[in-house]
């Protein structure tokens, strides 16, 4: 038998009494060898993060604690070792990187100091030597101008740079094991590709074992050697990456993989030439106004949307894709006039709505509705579901009974029980809330639905259901849809045409098949090549038709 770096045997973690299940994880067995990447995959609540935290002894004690089992690291059992020994192991022999590098770094401490701490607490070195080492580390993770970075604070770096700094910190003492807890989930797709590459390179340099936690099968396909799939605290399947991804045996694994949208665009549909919404040379600038008294600082100006013109045709789904900060959400909000713009025109069915006042605008509001990204923040927690949905029709002058009837009808359309009418948002899961958000948008019988990242906060299986629901509704109600997403897999399955945005400008427009098959702009090519797991294409992959 090969000697493993780490072996977890029959590990169970207890949840506090009154939680929805007794154990966060139950009888988990995992092994990790040097130079190997083990991916733990699962949806939210599957216990994958707690497994990682248990290895580091970072469980939120005393509420959540190890019930039974052992975590063998070398000759020691990490469940039993003393606190002082555990502290020595953390950061030097096992280290960890996290999902959100902004919150995982101390906001008021410079990057240099945060790296320096590790040396100070694990090795005895002179100050100059520590500094030299830290600069070398920052160079290794390919941060520009490492000396300068030493004195910067986390908020002065971009998301990708912050994650690089985190990795530098984690690798400071060449640990035997690197635990990565969704390290690329908060990053843009091109940055994600770079970070994944960096982790791979670092792993081969140090020959460390990497325990990689993720929910994204694309990422798994790109970096894993072995995979363990978790569901509600249990490991339901594990094996080599080839076995699990291409010949999954457990039904849960199969369903998860089937829910991953395929990168092959869906078959084109017949296209209408009738334009529902026409956007003409739209501009939106943030900031820039003169401050009080006129002699203050000049404010930072952001050109969020620059000279954007586009058409939304009857019955089509127009995808707007781009990375964070590309102006896609701003554009969507400008189109339906949730936000005023500086310059340009928007017409709906030939009527220019750019200069309309509140009252004039009201009948047009009903024609354009929005579905938001965050299903938790976008529903008022103090209003019952029925009223949330009925509010729109009431404002538009429908009678109370009509609005209620409409709300009940919509609840059944989006697949919710009619009992939901009298309940509050917190009683529903993320996917159910997104259904409520869709029902709210549909209550006014809109012609245009603007969906701003409607599935990016959802687990992959829920995501597939919501995408299917949106597609069904679009077909039944003959809606035209603007679909904003950063996920090209989703875009491939949902959109008829795609607009690629960068820095507030449209860089390329084309049918989905054109963009995926033959992108012309360099940036579109870059985006496509960065999609994780593009080499892996599953026959069972979700396709909406």
């Amino acid at each position, binding site marked *: 038998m090969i000697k493993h770096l780490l072996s977890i045997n029959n590990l169970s973690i207890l949840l506090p009494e009154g939680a929805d299940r007794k154990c966060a994880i139950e009888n988990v067995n995992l092994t990790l060898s040097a130079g190997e990447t083990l991916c733990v995959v699962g949806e939210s609540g599957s216990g994958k993060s707690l497994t990682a935290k248990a290895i*580091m002894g970072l469980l939120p004690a005393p509420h959540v604690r190890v019930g039974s089992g052992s975590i063998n690291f070398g000759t020691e059992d990490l469940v039993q070792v003393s606190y002082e020994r555990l502290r020595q192991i953390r*950061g030097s022999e096992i*280290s960890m990187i996290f999902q959100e590098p902004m919150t995982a770094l101390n906001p*008021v401490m410079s990057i240099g100091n945060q790296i320096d701490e*590790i040396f100070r607490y694990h090795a005895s070195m002179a100050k100059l030597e520590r500094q030299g080492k830290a600069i070398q580390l920052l160079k290794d993770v390919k941060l520009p101008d490492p000396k300068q970075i030493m004195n910067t604070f986390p*908020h002065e770096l971009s998301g990708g740079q912050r994650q690089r700094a985190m990795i530098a910190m984690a690798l400071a003492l060449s640990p035997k094991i690197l635990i990565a807890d969704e390290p690329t989930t908060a990053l843009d797709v091109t940055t994600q590709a770079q970070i994944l590459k960096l982790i791979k390179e670092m792993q081969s340099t140090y020959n460390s074992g990497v325990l990689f936690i993720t929910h994204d099968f694309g990422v798994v396909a790109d970096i894993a050697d072995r995979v363990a799939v978790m569901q509600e605290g249990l490991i339901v399947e594990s094996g080599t990456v080839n076995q699990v991804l291409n010949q999954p045996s457990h039904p849960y694994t199969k369903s998860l993989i089937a829910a991953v949208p395929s990168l092959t665009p869906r078959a084109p549909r017949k296209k209408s030439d009738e334009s529902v919404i026409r956007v003409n040379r739209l501009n939106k600038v943030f900031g820039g106004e003169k401050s009080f008294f006129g002699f203050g*600082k000049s404010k930072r100006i952001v050109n969020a949307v620059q000279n954007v013109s586009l058409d939304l045709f009857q019955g089509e789904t127009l995808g707007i894709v781009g990375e964070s900060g590309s102006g896609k959400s701003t554009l969507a909000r400008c189109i339906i006039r949730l936000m005023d713009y500086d310059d340009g025109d928007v017409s709906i069915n030939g009527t220019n709505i750019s200069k309309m006042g509140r009252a004039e605008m009201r009948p047009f509001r009903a024609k354009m509705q929005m579905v938001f990204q965050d299903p938790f923040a976008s529903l008022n927690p103090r209003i019952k579901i029925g009223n949330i949905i009925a509010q729109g029709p009431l404002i538009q002058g429908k009678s109370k009974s009509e609005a209620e009837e409409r709300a009940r009808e919509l609840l059944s359309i989006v697949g919710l029980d009619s009992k939901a009418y009298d309940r509050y948002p917190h009683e529903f899961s993320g996917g159910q809330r997104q259904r409520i958000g869709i029902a709210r948008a549909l209550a006014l019988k809109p012609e245009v639905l603007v969906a701003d990242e409607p599935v990016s906060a959802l687990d992959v299986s829920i995501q597939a259901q919501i995408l299917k629901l949106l597609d069904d509704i679009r077909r039944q109600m003959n809606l035209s849809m603007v679909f904003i997403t950063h996920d090209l897999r989703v875009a491939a399955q949902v959109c008829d045409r795609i607009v690629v945005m960068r820095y507030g400008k449209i860089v390329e427009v084309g049918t989905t098949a054109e963009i995926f098959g033959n992108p012309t702009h360099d940036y579109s090519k870059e985006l496509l090549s960065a999609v994780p797991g593009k080499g892996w294409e599953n026959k069972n992959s979700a396709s909406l038709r």
Partner: protein
Amino acid sequence: MNRTSKILRYVSRRLLQGIPIILAIIVLNFFLLNLAEGDAVDVLAGEAGSATPEYMDQLRAKFGLDKPLPVQLLVYLKNVVTLDLGYSFRHDMPVSKLIVDRFWPTLLLMVSTIILAVGFGILLGLLAAVSLNTWKDAIITVFALITYATPLFWVGLMMIVVFSLNFGWFPTSGMENIAAFHEGFDRVKDIAHHLVLPTITLSLFYLALYTRMMRASMLEQYGLDYVVTARAKGLTERRITFVHVLRNALLPVVTMAGVQVGALIGGSVIVESVFAWPGLGMLAFESLFARDLNLLLGIFLLSSALVVAVNLIVDVIYSFLDPRIEIG
């Protein structure tokens, strides 16, 4: 542009912006105070026991109270611009001299109170948060609750009863023993001796506030991701608490302290009365009943200028504590 010149530029801009704010406060106060019935002449006449209407008119003409309000306001504003705060007929002294005389005792009380309250508040809050759900935490929390809920004047009176009358450790009232004619270091010691009870009394309330705030702030910070990172880096709990969490937890407390310095000037009326401390609060209180508007306006002007200045100082301190705040 380097940081120092950035800060200088920021400070000068904020000071310039403060001028219209203070002017607006003067105008507002002027009209507010004139809403009240009666003027200084009424009070003087009332105290004299008898005064003919002719004599009262004569007095009003002398004080400038016979002119229409807008004219009185303009005259006052003109005087303020030349740094002349007017004359208090009640005390027969220039307002500026009166205020300056009373300002130092108030400042002394205020500064010692803030230092005591913020310092101990942070310490106790820290201790409570570190030993969460233990007897230490319970004692501190209960102590904070009790001092928060007890009226200031009662605390003051009880302090006098216990520590002055029963034990005789501290003087009952006043700022110094005038009859002793202390000089130099002896005088400093005497004033410090007199300062103890009023400072403790006034601090207790604010101490409770800062303790609770610091405790909550620490606990909130403990729950954040960067603390998990710090643990994952293998740092000691001591380092995590005192270097990582403490500095982040201080930020809201500093903000709160800044806001309250202004409030403390007004809030000290009760303590100044109980301990006969010759401060601004007492002066304002007396001048209100004497309808001595000139004096009252002068005190308000000083308070508003102080609030503007303290807010500015806090903002600058904040920019050093939190690098995310950009000044300029």
